[in-house]
């Protein structure tokens, strides 16, 4: 299991979701991905994307203008 980071700052939705999706596709179940975004829409869209695609959101933190979402990759079907 490994931890990865993704800088999605300044990207507008749905680009943070797309970058997250593309990054997750290269990871293995159990890996975590920390995504740093500035579009507040990501707070809703990344968790929604995770719900429909079977991944877990471990945490959502806000630091000033940044939103940091940690995703754990779920098991492949």
């Amino acid at each position: 299991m490994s931890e990865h980071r993704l800088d999605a700052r300044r990207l507008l939705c749905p680009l943070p979701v797309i970058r997250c999706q593309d990054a997750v596709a290269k990871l293995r179940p159990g890996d975590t991905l920390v995504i740093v975004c500035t579009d507040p829409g990501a707070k809703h869209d990344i968790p929604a994307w995770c719900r429909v695609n079977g991944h877990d959101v471990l945490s959502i933190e806000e630091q000033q203008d940044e939103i940091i979402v940690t995703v754990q990759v779920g098991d492949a079907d």
Partner: protein
Amino acid sequence: MSEVRKAVALISGGLDSLLAARVMQEQGIHVEGINFFTGFCVEGHTHAIRKKDRARPKRNNALWVAEQLGIKLHIIDIIEEYKDVVINPKHGYGANLNPCLDCKVFMVHKAKEWIEANGFDFIVTGEVIGQRPKSQRKDTMPIIAAESGAEDLLLRPLCAKNLPPTLPEREGWVDREKLYDFEGRTRKPQMALARQFGLEDYAQPAGGCCFLTDANYSKKLADLWQARGERRYEIDDIMLLKVGRHIRPRPHFKLIVGREDGENKFLEGYRKQFTHLFTTSHNGPLVLLDGEAGEDDLELAARVTARYSQGRNAEQVDVEVHPLDGEVRTFSVRPLGGSEIPADWHL
């Protein structure tokens, strides 16, 4: 038991594609969704930028639909390839710069590539004959199927009964009798079907799914092409067309003026790519200058910047100008009066 067939549904976030996918699920088909991001999609951008809207960002309708259906959603970035669709649409534009028919052909074509790469059997869309005057007509349906290369792997469950049987119907993967024959501009059959499925709170049908159907947006894009002398754009260009006040005082440059804090903040992210200006003696907007500007132009830009600052009625306003390659300078200028900005400068 026979093998479960798999379909990918083009999910726009609207009701029709939601229903089309749902109808397939009713028939035991495994459905996953695909959604394309062209850069022009109306998904919450300006909401994310404007401060007053940040508190309640708009939901992503395609993701919402996928959740309602309990299906996976694949969002595909087609920004680069889509440029050719917008710039050279074989079938032309709709009322504005919306190349709807070419856009549909392109998206179905991408879906065809996707099913081939992912081992799916066919493609589903929420198209309805006659729903849109330009792109959803009886004669455009076969054009989309043929030009996309999808041919009879493209099934439109909401109007399939009015079209020749597709492969999934002929093979018995889906029962044609349980498909629909919706036609025309009315939304009543869709709403009735939504009720039947117990669906509420779906996105209301609007004029179109992207900014290219918007007259003001298209006007700004046309202006950009004219000013550059060629039909070309980058993702930053089309994002910036959604933000701020766009003013073109001279053919060779335009100004993008932030209208409030959220927009100013967003524009700040572009400071390294553009000559930019802001007032120092008064509170005011951040202004990006797109194009070429000589000495007189910079002064004019400074006067426009001052006009949109809190010093608009002052005798003199200090404006800091940061040229892209050059030294930072301060201009002390008299703000332009409202009547000194001709209406046709506003894009």
